[in-house]
């Protein structure tokens, strides 16, 4: 085991330029991956915040008894999908409208706005189908005149989110593939630079798994180092974006760790494929 580790490290020392080059290449490939992940993460974050505002507003017919409204609100609040219900009286509706419209508040002078029951849906139930179903149940109350829940933009939001998710997976897999190929190529160079040593190892009866081990460790080390470098680059890029463009969120510790593990796995797969091919050929 000691020799295996030493062998893996020796390659770094013997061919520092090649090693640095391969780590950098891996880092850039993972950096691209990281940047995309960051974009996907922020889209998701933004969507989550937008989704927070998904609301069903049921306008109540004029002259409805406040008791009936309160009863309906309590019923609706008991739906499993519903997070909370707010009753908005005619006066409150007017105040809110004036506030939202700011400079144009004059248009509401003397106007009468309908009272409403505002329903907020729990996270996880904000997909178009569920919202529509809840809206239909709310509309079933006889005194509800009309209902609004931003049908179109809920659907658009949802589609955008799905597209972002799929694009993330597809591009992520593409970048992962590229990383595996790059790591495989750099390990291949390392294997070739030690081809004589490997052939002698085989002649004196070293097992293939023994020969393979240092290269696998080297691949994992390169993957992890490349991953760390990529993380640093991604963090730097994110800091720049935060300073000059918009506030964004960064990966949490769990995702960071998963990213490094992913880098290690890419290194392992890349080197296993590369060494395996070499050992089969000689």
């Amino acid at each position, binding site marked *: 085991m000691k*020799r295996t580790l030493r062998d893996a490290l020796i390659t770094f020392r013997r061919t520092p330029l090649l090693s640095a080059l391969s780590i950098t290449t891996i880092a850039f490939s993972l950096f691209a991956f990281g940047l995309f992940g960051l974009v996907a993460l922020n889209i998701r974050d933004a969507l989550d915040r937008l989704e927070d505002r998904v609301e069903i507003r049921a306008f109540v017919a004029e002259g409805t008894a406040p008791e009936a409204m309160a009863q309906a609100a309590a019923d609706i609040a008991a739906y499993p999908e519903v997070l909370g219900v707010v009753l908005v009286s005619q006066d409150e509706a007017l105040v809110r409208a004036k506030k939202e419209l700011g400079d144009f508040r004059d248009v509401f002078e003397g106007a009468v706005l309908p009272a409403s029951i505002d329903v907020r849906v729990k996270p996880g139930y904000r997909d178009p189908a569920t919202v529509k179903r809840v809206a239909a149940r709310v509309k079933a109350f006889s005194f509800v005149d009309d209902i609004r829940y931003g049908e179109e933009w809920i659907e658009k939001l949802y589609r955008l989110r799905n597209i972002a998710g799929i694009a993330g997976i597809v591009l992520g897999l593409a970048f992962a593939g590229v990383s595996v190929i790059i790591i495989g190529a750099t390990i291949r160079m390392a294997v070739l630079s030690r081809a*004589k*040593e490997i*052939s*002698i*190892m*085989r*002649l*004196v*009866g*070293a*097992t*293939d798994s*023994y*020969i393979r081990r240092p290269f696998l460790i080297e691949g994992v080390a390169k993957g992890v180092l490349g991953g760390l470098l990529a993380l640093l680059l991604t963090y730097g890029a994110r800091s720049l974006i935060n300073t000059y463009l918009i506030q964004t969120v960064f990966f949490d510790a769990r995702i960071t760790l998963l990213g490094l593990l992913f880098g290690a796995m890419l290194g392992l797969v890349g080197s296993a494929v590369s060494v395996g091919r070499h050992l089969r050929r000689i």
Partner: protein
Amino acid sequence: MIRFTHVSKTYPRTGTAVDDVSLHIGKGEFVFFTGPSGAGKTTLLKMVYMEERPSSGEVRVSGTSSVTAKHRDVAQIRRKLGIVFQDFRLLDNRTAEQNIAFALEVTGVPRPLIITKVARVLTQVGLAGKGTAYPRELSGGEQQRVAIARALVNDPFVLIADEPTGNLDDRATRGIFQLLRDINAAGTAVMMATHNLDLIRRQEYRTIEMNRGAVVFDSGETAAPAPAAAPHDP
């Protein structure tokens, strides 16, 4: 110990390299393989250490059959063989000692044992004072001695030498040959392919001549290792 039974080897592009060879090499024998280039000597030796497998027939090496041997078995059988080549195949960035120790390290021999074994085998090949020299600091004959030491350090039952003197001058050739005789006298079988007919003519060892993949002459199995009769060459 080593038995070839109707062994043929055909390559897709170059055709037949070994053609229906059957022979047996006994414990402690010294066998010369001769014949022109391309006669199949190297392929025959490669089949002993299972670098090549026969296209038909069977090679048995110390109980392991070429027909059934797995990757792991090949690694195991090679630990009982010593292999030497014309081009020495030493690692340039390691000293003589480290080159020899390498063969033990990669098969998991513990460190203290490696040190004693390397010292012993260096003395055996006559390089006791040159353990810390790098291959480039050694003469051709000395480099081949290091390679032989590396082949011997695992205590093989047979030493396979493919043109071991092909790159050496007469003097060095005689030295290496004497070393192989001494090794044989100590009980290790030797299989040696060579072009050097002078070397063979003066010996009473078993000689197998090959041509176009077939055995055309076999002086016959010798019962016991020949005694080291010739005067020791420096």
